[in-house]
């Protein structure tokens, strides 16, 4: 299972990079993807997550070739 991970805005600064990729044998939840990709970094409050560009909850399972993104509350408009 190959999972692409992206970080945006202040979360990109916090993690220090904009992308990760992790290869894994079992199905992970979004929370586990965060832990693996960031090496258990503390997750900032209010962090949002999407899978394939749709908002999801933190217990959502992630499938092979999914794109997972982590970002702070949006501030557009």
């Amino acid at each position, binding site marked *: 299972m190959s999972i692409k991970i*992206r970080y*945006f*805005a*202040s979360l990109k*600064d916090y993690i220090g990079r904009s992308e990760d990729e992790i290869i894994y044998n079992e199905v992970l939840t979004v929370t586990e993807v965060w832990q693996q990709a960031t090496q258990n970094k503390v997750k900032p409050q209010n962090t949002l997550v*999407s899978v394939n*560009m*749709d*908002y999801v909850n933190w217990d959502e399972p992630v499938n092979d070739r999914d794109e997972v*993104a982590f*970002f*702070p*509350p*949006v*501030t*557009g*408009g």
Partner: protein
Amino acid sequence: MPVIIKNTPFLPYQVLQDYEETTLGQNNAIGACNIFIGTMRDFNEGDQIKVLTLEHYPGMTEKQLDKIIAEAHQQWALIDSLIVHRVGDLLPNDPIVLVATWSSHRGDAFDACRFIMENLKSKAPFWKKERLINEQERWVISNTKGYLNT
């Protein structure tokens, strides 16, 4: 129901005029149009802002905006709608966002335009970073509340 993300400045009235002339055409069922234009202020949280940088998540931004527009068209009797949003570096007074809704009666145009803006503000993945006059940079933490009396 176009959704346009632009990385260069745009003129809202020019965009609207062009859109009505070339795409909407002479639609005589239209009786109401509501338009929202958001522009860059040069002050925020007591500090003077020199440059505002707007980041987005290409693909997801469009997907979320399309979804918001589809919901608006389901909920109200809209003839058409339009969203234009800037990304990149903006200067004070630059337009950030344009939302327009066209309908036969005013209630639909007003309510749908408001709905689109409030949802855009809370769901569309855009992030603002401010550069102050002392060159300090900071991310905007959260958007202000939209509905004043709720």
